[in-house]
């Protein structure tokens, strides 16, 4: 049962990701990305990582993707962009990266299969997670907050309207 669900969700995730990277319209791509993230969230649930599954949905598929939506809205990507995308995405352009990715995937697959088989699915509850997170990993949490602070300040600074003068080029 779990295994079937796993394969099904996996198929959805892969399909959604493939669709996402091939979409001409950014918003379409974004929707497929959200689908992919949601299916990964389901996988997390299947793997017994309930808390991670929730976070995946709320933060990844929810919060972070909203950022993308905002930016796409601000940039007002219209039909011209889609035409340009079409011009950019000639079929030939896919060959090189795909071969490269195939090579890399092959290597990783060999490595992973070499590691031998092991069962997954031990459930780690949110409470267990919380105990560890605010116990030994407390410092990591603090550092993550600093990371977010840096990201916040950086994004704030970079989002400011640019000065007009002093261009170098």
């Amino acid at each position: 049962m779990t295994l079937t669900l796993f394969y099904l969700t996996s198929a959805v995730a892969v399909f959604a990701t493939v669709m996402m990277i091939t979409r001409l319209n950014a918003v379409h791509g974004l929707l497929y990305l959200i689908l992919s993230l949601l299916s990964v969230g389901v996988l997390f649930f299947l793997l017994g990582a309930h808390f991670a599954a929730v976070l995946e949905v709320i933060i990844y598929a929810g919060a972070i993707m909203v950022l993308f939506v905002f930016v796409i809205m601000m940039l007002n990507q219209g039909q011209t962009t889609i035409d340009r995308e079409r011009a950019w995405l000639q079929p030939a352009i896919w060959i090189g990266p795909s071969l490269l990715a195939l090579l890399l995937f092959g290597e990783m697959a060999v490595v992973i299969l070499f590691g031998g088989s092991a069962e997954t699915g031990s459930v780690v509850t949110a409470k267990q997670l919380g105990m560890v997170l605010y116990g030994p990993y407390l410092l990591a949490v603090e550092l993550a907050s600093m990371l977010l602070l840096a990201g916040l300040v950086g994004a704030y600074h970079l989002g400011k309207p640019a000065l007009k003068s002093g261009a170098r080029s």
Partner: protein
Amino acid sequence: MNGIPMEQGLLLSAMLFVLGLIGVLVRRNLIMMLMSLEVVLNATGLAFVVAGSRWGDADGQIMFLLILTLAAAEVGVGLGLTLQVFRRFHTLDADSLNEMKG
């Protein structure tokens, strides 16, 4: 709740990883590149959760949490930069950013 072999979970994460990679390598639209990057990072998160699920401890999920934090911060800064680039060059073409070379 069991039955998912770890290597299959890892294979899936590897597949998502390389799909995201293809996205980064192929797309010229900066926003799409950033989105592909999210896929790649998410794939590594998946790998950690799979591994954590095998060992049955919270470390894997905690690593995922940290990756999530990184992804959020990176997207924030990345989109800020993208906005600036668009304001300045009126394009999102990554290939147009090649003033510096050689």
